[in-house]
């Protein structure tokens, strides 16, 4: 293709040269000048256009990919990598449920795969499951409610990991859901029961405990 352009260019150049020569030889005058003046910008613009065509073909070849041609039908995929090295391919819309990842994509830092250093593959699987469902069934409020209720039927360790992950990834709906679940486990319990539930050690000194009791005497009856 390039050679063809080059060939045409040289041919025309030589042609023009010949014409100029003949013009010069033949006669001088207004018509001669007129012709020359026409030819000169014409040739310049012709060379310029060749240059533009060349550059356009170069750029299109570089970025031409099946995805660009078919962009209207298949979604862009993002790769996430958990702390233990496993990779997950998710749709961009699903990944964008996380504000942290959304900012990375917008700031153009998400070229190959995004590492998520604080989240293990088990937790990341659950997070992706949640985000997928919430993107797919966005308008189905009832369906999402029952999904959320089932989703939160997990042991406390998984709940803890989910909380930390959704906090890091900044997924507000999952974070609030997790916090509400923890709050529900706290409700209706006295401090000793709360400690048992969450494996919390009582690290108050006896004096401090006395202070605490005096602070909120209305719950300690």
């Amino acid at each position, binding site marked *: 293709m390039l050679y063809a352009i080059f060939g045409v260019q040289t041919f025309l150049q030589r042609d023009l040269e010949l014409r100029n020569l003949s013009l010069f030889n033949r006669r001088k005058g207004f018509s001669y000048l007129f012709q020359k003046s026409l030819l000169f910008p014409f040739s310049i613009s012709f060379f310029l256009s060749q240059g533009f065509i060349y550059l356009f073909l170069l750029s299109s070849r570089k970025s031409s990919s099946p995805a660009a041609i078919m962009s209207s039908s298949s979604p862009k995929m993002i790769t996430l990598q958990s702390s233990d090295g496993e990779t997950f391919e998710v749709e961009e819309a699903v990944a964008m449920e996380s504000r942290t990842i959304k900012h990375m994509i917008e700031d153009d830092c998400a070229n190959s795969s995004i590492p998520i250093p604080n989240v293990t593959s088990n937790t990341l699987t659950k997070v992706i499951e949640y985000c997928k469902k919430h993107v797919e069934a966005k308008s189905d409020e009832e369906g999402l409610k029952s999904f959320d209720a089932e989703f939160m039927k997990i042991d406390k360790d998984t709940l803890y990991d989910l909380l930390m992950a959704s906090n890091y990834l900044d997924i507000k709906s999952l*974070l609030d859901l997790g916090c509400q679940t*923890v709050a*529900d486990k706290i*409700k209706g*319990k006295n401090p000793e029961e*709360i400690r048992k539930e*969450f494996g*919390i050690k*009582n690290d108050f000194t006896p004096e401090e405990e006395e202070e605490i009791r005096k602070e*909120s005497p209305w719950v300690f009856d």
Partner: protein
Amino acid sequence: MWSNLPFDLLANIFSFLSPDSLACAKSSCRHWHQCARYLATPESQRRHPPWFIALPNRSRGLFCCAYNPIDDSNSSSSWYMLPLDFLPIPTRPVSATAGLVLLRSTSTTPFQLAICNPFTRQFRHLPTLNVTRINPAVGVIELDPGHQFGELNFRAYVAGGMSEAPGGGALYEPKVEMYDSRCDTWKVIGSMPVEFAVRLTVWTPSESVYSNGILYWMTSARAYSVMGFEIATNSWRELSVPVADRLEFAALVQRNGKLTLLGGKCGGDACIWELGEGDVWRMIEKVPFELGMRFLGGKGCWDSTKCVGNNGIVCLYKDLGSGMLVWREVVDEGRWEWFWIDGCCSIRGQQLQNFQIKGLLLHPNLAHSSLLNA
């Protein structure tokens, strides 16, 4: 693991807890205690309804009672007893604002205000007024929460009362003073017409209600009427009360931005009016007959009724042992419904004697405020 959750995450969890659950949670370990003590989230106010606090009406009360509208615990009583032994002087409650109770001192003759938080057991005097007076009317407005944590956000207005005349004797004080919690000072902001000062001093038993830039007081000079103080323009006006001559009891509350009036007629009826455009009262609701009769307890007289209300809730009450009538907005449904709440005769097995109360609606604030250290 759980005891080391980052503070912001823990604060988010705590914002889903009602005050009694939060009190238990913060008593479990040091980390949680720190978080609850110093981090108050405004979300928790949105998520939980206010509590009804029954404060003793007369001088030195040893405790007050708080009613939890949502009962998560398994205990049979939703009432809690909050000791008031941390109050250094005898006081009488005025109103509630910004998670605090505003009190007026009953031991000192010149008028003095104080604030306290019955849930954190903190108390503080407010500075003395510029103009010494006795028995004025008090108005309070809550300001939008500021950016600094622990900031107190309210303004108090004092108007009327009696002060010493220059040559001896007493006069009705026309100067109006304002206290801004952010500056912690009183400022004289203007004067009021003397006849209004008289009525505010003599015939204004209840505290003010704030609605749309105006502080309203219900006065009962023979027949009920309402006085309004427009803060921005510093002007005073008077509003009539519907069927004022037939009302045995009348009270103002603020309901979702509208000034609302509850009135009980002799004969047992009670109606609710709302103030609309052009200062016209429009009847919007009647107290259901059966509930009304139950509340009156067969006496058929509204005399000792009192009322308190705030945004989505209105309470009619008498004293601690008698039942309460509550008119509450159902969240997300835009309609209101009536409830009956039994009076409080015992809390956690301890029998209580009945006493006269002043009821306030308060969002319990369990966070310690450094500004409340006396």
